[in-house]
């Protein structure tokens, strides 16, 4: 039986705010918006789980909750056996967040300097940092560009540096939020190969939030399709879509808000 790495139980996020100045008469009235509703999810070690859904479906909120960046309103979750609410330090030591956000680096510093800084934050010793940085640069094919300033990198190179940063501490779980956004087809292919050859083959678990249904079909072992904060469908692509393509299944599901597999 495969080891469960991520388990969520009725995980919910409701954002509440005051009406405020937009409605002066009802300034103190509260307005609520449920971004994620009752998610029950189980992901096993070595699995690539695709998180799909239209804009505003709740993918990013769910990912951020699992990365401890947003507190859930209800429900609970464990990552690698650690409780999301009570063992945040252990959860953080077990995960890496790789987003398409280029701004998460110091642009005026070189790629190597950025990695040195984040290696310290991940708790790597100086000796381990000296060993690990050349290794991760080699893995992502950035050894020759390590001394260049981050601002001089192309979109693909920035994405590879984000991967390199995620690999530094060798975590068990990788959350990837649209990692192929802005990449050319060759770079996308390389990333997919990389996920298979370097991550899941070594027992790492990947949560891949993406809008690219072809990518999800090709790479993911299982997918979950979110809409309006709910998980509307979850399973292996072949089981969900049958003979149809994932794209057809996805569009049918999203077009019919009442439908649930």
């Amino acid at each position, binding site marked *: 039986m495969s080891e469960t790495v991520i388990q969520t139980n009725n995980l919910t996020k409701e954002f509440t705010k005051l009406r405020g100045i937009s409605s002066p008469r009802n300034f103190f009235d509260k307005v609520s918006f449920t971004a994620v509703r009752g998610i029950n999810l189980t992901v096993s070690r070595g699995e690539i789980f695709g998180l799909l859904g239209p804009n505003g479906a709740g993918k990013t909120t769910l990912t951020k909750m699992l990365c401890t*960046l947003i*507190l859930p309103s209800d429900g609970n979750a464990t990552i690698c056996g650690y409780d999301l609410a009570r063992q945040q330090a252990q959860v953080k030591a077990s*995960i890496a967040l790789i987003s398409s956000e280029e701004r998460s680096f110091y642009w005026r*510093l070189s790629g190597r*300097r950025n990695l040195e800084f984040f290696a310290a*934050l991940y708790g790597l*010793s100086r000796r381990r940092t000296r060993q690990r940085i050349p290794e991760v640069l080699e893995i992502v094919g950035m050894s020759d560009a390590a001394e260049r300033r981050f601002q001089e990198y192309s979109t693909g190179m920035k994405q590879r540096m984000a991967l390199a940063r995620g690999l530094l501490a060798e975590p068990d779980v990788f959350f990837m939020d649209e990692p192929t956004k802005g990449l050319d087809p060759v770079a996308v292919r390389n990333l997919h190969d990389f996920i298979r050859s370097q991550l899941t083959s070594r027992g790492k678990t990947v949560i891949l939030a993406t809008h690219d249904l072809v990518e999800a079909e090709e790479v993911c072992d299982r997918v979950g399709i979110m809409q309006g904060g709910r998980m509307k469908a979850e399973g292996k692509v072949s089981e969900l879509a049958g003979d149809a393509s994932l794209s057809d299944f996805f569009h049918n599901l999203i077009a019919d808000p009442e439908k649930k597999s």
Partner: protein
Amino acid sequence: MTLRKPQAFLKKDFLMETSYRFSFFLQFGGIFFSVVMFYFVSELIGSAPSVQQSLSRYGGNYFSFVLIGIAFSNFLSVGLGSFSSSIRGEQMMGTLEAMLVTPTRLSTIIISSSQWSFAFTSLRVGIYLLLGGLLFGVDFGDANVIPALAALLLTVIAFSSLGIISASFIMIFKRGDPIAWLISSTSTLVGGVFYPISILPDWLQKLSYLFPITYSLDAIRLSLLQGYGFANQEVTRDLAALVVFSVITLPVSLVIFRYAVRRAKKDGSLAYY
């Protein structure tokens, strides 16, 4: 907390700051002009008997009085502003979220983020004093450095506590922090930066005792200009007041900051700016 993470912040901020070389050196030029300007102001008003009488407690020389005032009030600015500005800077650069997802405590991030500002301010204050001593003949021959350093340490803690409260506002409201503005403006007005508090009306003098800068500047001036040590009652009174400020405000600031972070995590607005 091991030193590895704070050192990494210091190195990163040093590299970032010095990557803007022109701006880095321009700041030292600003110190020179400020010192020269106050020297001439001192030449104009410093010999007036009323000024010398007001400053007799500190040796009677206006230039040395104001030099210490403007130099050490830098710590007020950096203590109040560095935490909030570093948090806001990281939010705007987009790096805060990347840091928060690492196994690093938020308190380590916020304290370490402001180290460079304090280190750089110490350098600036050293240059102020060096210029005053070498070019304009301020006499630090009798200076008692240890009590001045003790006052400085307590000053940094007291101001930083207020700065952490200020950063809490930034964490929730993103801009428009009233704490730093209010304390900075009032401290400069009543804290004895440019003139001794003895010339203020009685009610403003009473108000000045609520602000740590009053005690900081008094203790530092008495130590550096008059050579007073821990045996001096006025110095120990100032230090005791700073200890009380620190003991009260530091835990309060940490509680407020913890609340602010929790609130931002609930709102999902941790990295917004």
